[in-house]
C-alpha cells in the first residue's frame, strides 16, 4: 500500500489544531513516514490537488467556504474534521445565538453592510458535507490525532471514547469541579482529551461535544443541589455546543 496523500485545509478557526500537528515535534517525521502531506499552507509552500485524505480545520461561516469544502470532499476519499470548529462548529457558533445582522453591526459598525462581510450561520463540517472521521477537541489532542492517523493508515476505525470526561478525571485522580461548586460539563461531554481542563484548574466546557446519549435533563435537575442555576448550565452548554442538539437543557 502506498502512503496515503494528505491535504490540510483551514476555515474559520484559530489554527490551534494545526499547531498541535506542529507540536508533534520529532513525531512529525514519523507522521510523514506513514502519510504524505501534499498540501499544508501553514507549514509548506507546495500545493497539490491530488490527495486521499483531507483534514479540515475550522468552521464554515460563509457560502463560498461551503463551496470550497464541497470541492475538497469531492476530491478526498476520507474527510476528517479536525477540532471543535470543524466537528461541532465550536466557539464560532456562539455567533448563532445572535441576529447575524446585529453581530456584524456590533463589530463593523457602519461598514457592516459591505458585501464581503457577509457571514452566515456557523456550521460544523458535517452540516455541509459527509464527514468520515472526527478528531474532537479545542484544540484537538495530539495523541488522539496520531492514534487516528495510525488507524487510518492501518485501515482501522479509530477507537474514540464514547463515555463522559468524568472517566478520565477519575483515571487521573483529578478532584471533581463540583467539589468546588462549579458547573463542569464533563458529565455530558465525550472524553478522549484526558481531561486537561478540570485537571488544570478549570471546568470542562464541552469542547468535544456531547457524549452519546448525554443526560442533559439530569444535569438540569442537579443544578439546585450545587446552588447553581439552570441558566448557568444553559450558558455553559452554549459555549461550544450552540445550536447543536440537545442544547435546550
Amino acid at each position, binding site marked *: 500500500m502506498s502512503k496515503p496523500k494528505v491535504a490540510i485545509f483551514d476555515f474559520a478557526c484559530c489554527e490551534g489544531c494545526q499547531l498541535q500537528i506542529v507540536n508533534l515535534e520529532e513525531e512529525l517525521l514519523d507522521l510523514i513516514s506513514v502519510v504524505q502531506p501534499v498540501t499544508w499552507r501553514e507549514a509548506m509552500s507546495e500545493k497539490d490537488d491530488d490527495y486521499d485524505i483531507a483534514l479540515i480545520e475550522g468552521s464554515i461561516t460563509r457560502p463560498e467556504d461551503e463551496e470550497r469544502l464541497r470541492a475538497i470532499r469531492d476530491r478526498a476519499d476520507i474527510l476528517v474534521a479536525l477540532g471543535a470548529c470543524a466537528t461541532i462548529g465550536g466557539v464560532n457558533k456562539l455567533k448563532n445565538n445572535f441576529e447575524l445582522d446585529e453581530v456584524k453591526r456590533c463589530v463593523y459598525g457602519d461598514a457592516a453592510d459591505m458585501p464581503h462581510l457577509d457571514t452566515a450561520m456557523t456550521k460544523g463540517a458535517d452540516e455541509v458535507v459527509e464527514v468520515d472521521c472526527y478528531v474532537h477537541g479545542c484544540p484537538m489532542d495530539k495523541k488522539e490525532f496520531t*492514534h487516528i492517523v495510525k488507524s487510518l*493508515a*492501518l485501515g482501522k476505525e479509530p477507537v474514540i471514547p464514547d*463515555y463522559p470526561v468524568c472517566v478520565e478525571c*477519575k483515571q487521573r485522580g483529578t*478532584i471533581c469541579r463540583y467539589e468546588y461548586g462549579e458547573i463542569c460539563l464533563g458529565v455530558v461531554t465525550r472524553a478522549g482529551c484526558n481531561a486537561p481542563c478540570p485537571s488544570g484548574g478549570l471546568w470542562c466546557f464541552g469542547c468535544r461535544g456531547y457524549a452519546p446519549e448525554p443526560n442533559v435533563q439530569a444535569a438540569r435537575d442537579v443544578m439546585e443541589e450545587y446552588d447553581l442555576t439552570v441558566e448557568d448550565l444553559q450558558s455553559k452548554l452554549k459555549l461550544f455546543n450552540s445550536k447543536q442538539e440537545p442544547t435546550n437543557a
Partner: protein
Amino acid sequence: MGIRKLSTASLHAWVDRIIAGNRVIGIQAKDDKFAFAPLSAAGDLRLDHDVAYTPPKAFFQPAIETLVRYRGIEHESVVDDDPFVLFGVHPYDMVALNQMAEIWSRDNYDPHYMSRWEQATVVACDVQNVSENCFAGCMGTAHVKEGFDILLTKVGDSYLADYRTEKGEKLADLMEQSRDATDGDLRARREVWHANNRLLRRHELQMFPNNLPELLEKSYDHPVWEEMAERCFSCGSCNLCCPTCYCFDVQDDVEWDLQSGERKRAWDGCMLASFAGVAGGHNFRGDRADRYRHRYYRKGKYVPEMIGECACVGCGRCISACVANIANPVTVYNRLLEDE
C-alpha cells in the same frame, strides 16, 4: 513480629529512614483533599487524612497499564515488579485490597496485578478523621485484621505499629526510639477500634451486609432502579472511584512502524453506556436502570457470592463522586429493606 510504640516525632524519623531506602507512596494533601503520591519527606505524610481521593487500588491496577508488548506476532509480557511501600491505607481500603488480591489471584492468576501486590509493603493506618460519607462501621470494615504488613494506630500522642509480616518487620527494624506496646497500650488501641466502629457511620445501613444477597435476590424488579437511574449520567464515576471495582477495557496502541506496540488495559465501568455493547449495535445492558441495578447487585450479591464478602467496604467515595447524588449504596439498600 510485634507491636511497638513510638512518638509522633520518632514516627517521622522512622518514615524518613524508610524513604531513604525505598520507593514510598504516601498519603498527602492534594488541594483540600488527600491523595496517595510519591512521598519525599515524612513531613508531607498526612495520617490524619479523612479519605484518599483515589483508592489505593490505583497502585496495583493503574488506571492504564501495559499488559503485553508486541513486535509483529512476537508478544512479551510486561510485569511491573518494582517494590514499593504504600503508606497510610485506611482499614476499609485494606479490606478492599484484600478482596482484590483474592479476585485477581483466584481461577486465572493475573501476574500484572499480583506482582505489584507481592512487591508492595502496605502500611495501614486506623482512621483519625472521618470523611463526610464514610459508613465503614456498618460494613464491618472500620477496623482490619489482616492483609497489611504494618498497622499504625494513633493512641494519644503516640503511634502503635503492629507488624505482622517479614516485609513489615524489615521496615520496623528501621525504627529507633520505640518500645514494645504494653497491655495498657493495647487496651487504648481497642478503644480506638471501638470508637471508630461507632464513628465511621455517616450513613446508617439498616442491616448486616451479609443479608444483602438475600435482600437483593428479591429486589430485581423494585422501582428504585428506574427512579434513581433517571438521573444517572452514565459517567462511571461511582465505578472508577470504588476501591473494589476492577473491570477493565483492553486496547492496542501501535507505534509509527504500524507493527509493534503495546496492549493496554484501562479502568472501565459497568455504569458506562456501552460497557455491555457488542459489534453490530446490540447492547446487553442498554438501559440506564439495568446498568444501575447491576452495580448494586455486583457489590451486594454477585461478588459476595464469589468471594464470600460484601464488595462494598463503605468508603463512601461513590457518594461523594456522584454528581447526580444517586450513588449512595446505603440509601438504595435501606430503601429495598423498607419496601420489603
